[in-house]
């Protein structure tokens, strides 16, 4: 026989104005299992709480229903009061008499009866509540950062500077990412590498950071505070311990005509190479696909010349496992393949290039040492057309979203061009100029007004090469009454859309995080949890969420780092025990779970694992589902899906909900 206490709050007059609180308390007193019932003006006030505490002690209550405002308001308050009186806080339920009753109904019999019904429902529910204890999950104080662009660098440094160890994994031979490729950055026009490379070096030298380049995450298991990541260290064919980074091998390699990734195909590299001079680590790797030895079995020139004998052709891929408590995903983006808009002739015409190629042309470390020269003939273009929104905001052929960074970098490109080619003429075709950001609009205005960049509002229909080799850009000027315009250009720069990396979907599946239709990783909440994923303990930063500029990328990276640091600062994670559990019962059944594991696919959090029930000799009796309380978020989808009702959820158990529904309809 339970002893429930019912406490009806008047909430000043908020409840009592339309609900007869005394009658509700009186009716509650007569309900089965109720040992004490009363009403009071302000239950949440200190005297009100004292009233509850006292009643719990005096009447030895084993459950409490407070009829008051919404549980979303004061449930924590009343549960704390119960706990202070020695009652397990999860034995307290709130009947929502204010938001769901007194405030939405007129004064009258029906309103009071509804209040009684609500209380009745919760009395029956609370009679079946179980005392629960918060869940504690231990935390491994180490973080994994996937991706060594500016986001990963920033996140790794922030976490490491708080004293936690960080594993940074980068798939390329060097960290740096897209930012290392950029010439100068908007809106300040400071040199990208000048601000980035010190950070790259800091990462390499930081005692708390372990850097794995030319490495990829193979698999991730576990859950918040307790991940286990397997990392593949791709064979570099160079023994890093022996290599001094002298670079002799790269000068001797006979295979010199490989289009370099770092220069976006505008320059060449060798088969054994360092992607760029400031690379971190500044040690070469052998690109097996282009190496004569790997492809044809002959050469070994690098090995011959290496003064330290660091070349190891038979080096295998290595797999290492790291245990970490948190993961930050900073895998960035890539630009849309240009096959999306054949009408602009990219690939057909050498002097139609992408924005990122222009960055390389404009970069002092680029293939032209920062001079703007045409890829086709190396001449300085006198007329350049920049086309914004190549693929962006184009649901028919490209992607529906705005890539966000193109307006700004196009303005920057045009400006850089005007600075470098004083007699040059630049035209930008645009849809809208999106320059929201600190000093952004001013920057664009400067391009237009001071650097005389010709901005044409309209789309380009086609770029074609005339018989004489001139590129003709045919577009429309919508501000001039939709007139067709044709511009003869020496070079055309396409502001191609930023899209998700090709491996994003696969990585998301490895990590069990969700992604949007464009394969960008999805935030747990777009506004309030912008750097969290819906898998606890995994965070996001930078352009893997959506195209972002550098300030925003760095901000999210620091944000994610702050989340990680706050997680790693705890020895244990304490979580609400409102999680699903798989039942246990007497042998020979052990659990009514039959191990069909169909629930695994119903769980949005991959919280359901397999557990073997063994006898004393260690033989497996049966394999059943097990809910990992560290991962379970308590949605209960598995509970209503389970056919044998072997899974139940604490706090909203089958018995509780069943009793509540029946009790609500009890009165005749």
């Amino acid at each position, binding site marked *: 026989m339970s002893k429930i206490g019912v406490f009806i709050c008047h909430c000043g007059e908020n409840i009592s104005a339309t609900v007869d609180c005394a009658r509700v308390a009186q009716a509650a007193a007569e309900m089965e299992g109720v040992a004490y019932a009363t009403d009071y003006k302000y239950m949440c006030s200190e005297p009100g709480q004292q009233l509850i505490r006292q009643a719990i002690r005096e009447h030895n209550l084993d459950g409490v229903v407070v009829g008051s405002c919404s549980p979303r308001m004061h449930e924590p308050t009343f549960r704390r009061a119960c706990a202070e009186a020695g009652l397990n806080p999860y034995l307290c339920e709130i009947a929502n008499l204010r938001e769901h009753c007194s405030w939405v109904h007129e004064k009258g019999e029906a*309103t009071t009866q509804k209040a009684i019904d609500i209380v009745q429902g919760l009395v029956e529910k609370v009679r079946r509540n179980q005392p629960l204890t918060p869940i504690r999950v231990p935390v491994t104080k180490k973080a994994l950062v996937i991706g060594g662009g500016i986001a990963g660098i920033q996140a790794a440094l922030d976490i490491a500077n708080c004293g936690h160890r960080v594993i940074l994994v980068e798939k390329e031979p060097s960290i740096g990412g897209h930012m290392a490729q950029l010439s100068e950055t908007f809106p300040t026009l400071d040199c990208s590498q000048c601000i980035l490379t010190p950070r790259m070096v800091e990462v390499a030298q930081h005692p708390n950071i372990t850097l794995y380049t030319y490495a990829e995450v193979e698999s991730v298991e576990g859950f918040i505070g307790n991940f286990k990541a397997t990392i593949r260290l791709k064979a570099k064919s160079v023994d890093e311990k022996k290599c001094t980074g002298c670079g002799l091998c790269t000068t001797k390699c006979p295979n010199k005509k490989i289009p370099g990734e770092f220069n976006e195909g505008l320059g060449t590299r060798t088969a054994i190479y360092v992607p760029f001079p400031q690379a971190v680590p500044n040690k070469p790797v052998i690109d097996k696909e282009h190496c004569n030895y790997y492809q044809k079995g002959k050469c070994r020139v690098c090995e011959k010349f290496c003064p330290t004998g660091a070349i190891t052709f038979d080096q295998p891929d290595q797999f290492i496992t790291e245990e970490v408590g948190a993961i930050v995903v900073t895998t960035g983006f890539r630009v849309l393949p240009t096959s999306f808009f054949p009408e602009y002739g990219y690939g057909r015409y050498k002097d139609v290039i992408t924005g990122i190629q222009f960055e390389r042309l404009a970069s002092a470390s680029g293939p032209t040492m920062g001079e703007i020269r045409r890829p086709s003939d190396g001449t300085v273009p006198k007329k350049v057309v920049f086309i914004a929104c190549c693929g962006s905001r184009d649901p028919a052929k490209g992607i529906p979203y705005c890539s966000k960074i193109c307006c700004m970098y196009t303005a920057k490109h045009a400006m850089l061009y005007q600075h470098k080619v004083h007699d040059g003429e630049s035209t930008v075709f645009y849809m809208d100029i999106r320059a929201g950001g600190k000093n952004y609009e001013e920057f664009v205005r400067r391009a237009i007004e001071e650097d005389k960049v010709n901005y044409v509002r309209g789309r380009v229909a086609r770029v074609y090469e005339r018989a004489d080799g001139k590129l003709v850009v045919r577009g429309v000027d919508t501000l001039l009454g939709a007139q067709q315009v044709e511009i003869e250009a020496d070079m055309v720069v396409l502001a191609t859309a930023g899209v998700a990396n090709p491996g994003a979907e696969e990585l998301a599946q490895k990590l069990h995080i969700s992604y949007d239709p464009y394969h960008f990783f999805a935030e747990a909440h777009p506004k309030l949890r912008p750097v969290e994923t819906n898998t606890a303990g995994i965070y996001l930063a930078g352009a893997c969420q959506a195209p972002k500029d550098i300030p925003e990328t760095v901000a999210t990276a620091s944000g994610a780092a702050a989340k990680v640091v706050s997680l790693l600062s705890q020895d244990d994670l304490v979580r609400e025990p409102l999680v699903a559990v798989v039942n246990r019962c007497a042998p020979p059944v052990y659990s009514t779970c039959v191990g069909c594991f169909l629930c695994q696919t*119903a769980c949005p959090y991959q919280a359901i694992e397999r557990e073997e029930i063994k006898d004393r000799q260690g033989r497996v009796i049966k394999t059943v589902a097990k809910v990992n309380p560290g991962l379970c978020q308590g949605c209960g*989808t598995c509970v209503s899906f389970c056919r044998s009702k072997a899974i139940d959820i604490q706090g909203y158990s089958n018995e509780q909900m069943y009793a509540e*529904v*029946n009790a609500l309809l009890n009165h005749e």
Partner: protein
Amino acid sequence: MDENKAAFEPRIIAFVCNWCTYAGADLTGTSRIKYATNVEIVRFPCTGRIDFMLLLKAFAAGADGIIVSGCHPNDCHYTSGNFHARRRWIVFRGLLDFLGIDVRRIHYYWVSAAEGAKWAEVVNQTVAEIRELGPYTEYKKVANYIEETEAAHE
């Protein structure tokens, strides 16, 4: 007949998720929007948690109508509970209809935490429609039925 309908106060149970509709109904309260008293709310963590048997139990216990409401698609606090629920309801509804159970008495809605006014409309509309349908006598009768000879002394 119409008089009877006017006199008939339907009893309706609302199965709602904690994060959207329950919060939306809270907003109705804080906005002081009035609605009919016929609906009693049961709070679930998520629409994914709502067992179809609980709906049948509500009818068996005497409910004349049912509201099921949760987060709009893509807005689920648990990312996909409402999608699971939607599938379940599609299948369940088809089965109930085939069995001749009155599916017009189960109303499904998406009501977000911001849609306080919508919640009031949802309640009033459901109450009006169930009132029009009258009490769910045929189900209650079956729920009480045990054995033929007992019909005499019911």
